[in-house]
């Protein structure tokens, strides 16, 4: 082993990984956005009343994470000022360059619009009651229209519904797009499969739903408000369904690869049994998929007390969040560990205090929560839950 960490034959440009921890973080964050939004739309479009207490929470979570989503890319690429050029001189034949538009569409036309419509009555109310800078902010947010008559709210509701209906395919687009980027790298057999966008999408829904569920329980605990069990039970049910679909898709991919056993299989199989054994088989599949699935299945099958159920949901949610992160890791990092000659393997070490290091990643994961807290201050989601606990 002349080059440390390299085994067998590695082309010179494969020895060092180009996409590191931040590129793992990026699909993870957009996934949380898409998943949280889809949970919100359950209530709105599919009229699942039980999840109503998390509706606003999910929207604000999606916004907080969406605002952070481009940062890993900016840090990875450097020269953030140049990123604006993808709007100025759009490159229509590059999927990566089109991300700017997918992002902007999702941010303004879907998320901000839906949040504004949902909160408009509150904004008007707060513009009337608060003073100083706060009052000014709310006044600006009303756009100068204080009309919250029932008739105008009916119109808001209709428009909001339409926005959500547009929003669901947009959320699919946002995250399907990320999978598409990987799935369309035809030189890389670990990535190149048309299943990739769909797998990314469902894993996004899984992580987003789990994220909102955990956040809801945590926020209720912090605010000393009662957790609405009917709501959490329903979320857990949907989490279970989407997780089953997600896991089936991933297993379908695995079975298909194994059965097809093309020229890359021996190499990838070796990689899964060595370098990815811990992060993929033990962590992702066993600990963070099978265990949560078993927990969720038992809450569906057996009668379990409330306190126990809450604990199970919490454990499940946290495991799922770790598991989906592991899945992103295994896709992004795994896809760069083997040589395209299928004759060698390299390794990856995360740096600590570097631009793309662990410290940055941790900061980037804390940032959405800071934004979330600020958003909650600005647009409190609670009134309806305090007035009617258990709704």
């Amino acid at each position, binding site marked *: 082993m*002349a*080059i440390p960490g*390299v085994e*067998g*034959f*590695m*082309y*010179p440009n494969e020895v060092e990984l180009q996409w590191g921890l931040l590129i793992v973080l990026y699909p993870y964050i957009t996934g949380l956005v898409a998943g949280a939004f889809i949970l919100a739309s359950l209530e709105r479009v599919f009229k699942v009343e039980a999840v109503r207490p998390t509706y606003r929470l999910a929207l604000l979570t999606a916004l907080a994470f969406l605002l952070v989503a481009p940062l890993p890319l900016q840090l990875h690429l450097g020269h953030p000022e140049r990123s604006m050029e993808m*709007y*100025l*001189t759009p*490159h229509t034949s590059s999927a990566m360059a089109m991300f700017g538009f997918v992002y902007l569409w999702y941010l*303004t036309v879907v998320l901000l*619009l839906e949040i*504004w419509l949902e909160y*408009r009555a509150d904004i008007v109310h707060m513009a009337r009651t608060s003073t100083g800078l706060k009052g000014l902010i709310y006044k600006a947010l*009303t*756009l*100068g*229209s204080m*009309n919250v*008559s029932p*008739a*105008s709210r*009916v*119109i*808001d509701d*209709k*428009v909001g519904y339409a926005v959500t209906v547009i929003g669901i395919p947009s959320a699919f687009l946002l995250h399907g797009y990320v999978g598409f980027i990987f799935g369309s790298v035809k030189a890389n057999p670990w990535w190149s499969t048309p299943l990739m966008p769909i797998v990314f999408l469902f894993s996004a829904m899984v992580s987003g739903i789990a994220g909102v569920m955990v956040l809801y329980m945590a926020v209720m605990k912090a605010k000393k408000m009662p957790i609405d069990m009917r709501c959490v039970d329903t979320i857990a049910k949907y989490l279970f369904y989407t997780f089953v679909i997600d896991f089936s898709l991933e297993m379908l991919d695995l079975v298909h690869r194994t059965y097809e056993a093309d020229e890359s299989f021996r190499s990838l199989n070796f990689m899964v049994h060595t370098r990815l054994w811990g992060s993929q088989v033990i962590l992702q599949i066993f600990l963070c998929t099978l265990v949560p699935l078993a927990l969720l299945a038992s809450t569906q099958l057996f009668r379990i007390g409330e306190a126990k159920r809450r604990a199970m949901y919490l454990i499940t949610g946290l495991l799922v969040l770790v598991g989906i992160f592991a899945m992103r890791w295994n896709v992004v990092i795994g896809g760069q560990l083997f040589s395209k000659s299928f004759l*060698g393997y390299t390794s990856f070490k995360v740096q600590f205090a570097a631009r793309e290091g662990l410290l940055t990643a941790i900061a980037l994961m804390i940032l959405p929560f800071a934004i979330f807290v600020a958003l909650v201050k600005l647009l409190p989601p609670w009134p309806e839950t305090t007035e009617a606990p258990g709704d």
Partner: protein
Amino acid sequence: MPWKGGTLRQFFRNSGHLIRLAAVLIAGLCVFLLIRTALIPKAFGKYGHYSPGALDVIRQRPVSYAGQDTCVMCHDGEAKERASGRHAHVACEACHGPQAAHANADDPSAHKPRLPDVANLCRRCHEKDAAKPAHFPQVVTAEHSGGAACNSCHQPHNPHL
């Protein structure tokens, strides 16, 4: 229907905030388009998806490599030595780094280049790697030199012993 029983005017009054919102969005779009026309270089796209003016900008940047023909004019000894060994086709600046500031200076000794860091220089090209062509001279440096500096045995300009 929201305007049932009311008039069209009422409908417009009740969706006034949406009209304002649309106005804000349209205003934003207009501002963007204005900024866009101001920022995009005039001839953008003339030869492809880039600005032809960029070529001039790049051309104006200072040249950092002098090219070995320049080095040879003054450093006759090193040039002769190198020409007689297997580093004959390795350019001076491949090892010494960009030296235009030194070579084109009125007084080159005032811009004396730092000598290369031999510990890392040689292994950059000669470290054993299965992906390199088999005929290229390569060694597992740690085993080969046992930590001694490469130039304690090899002459950098003519590496054969």
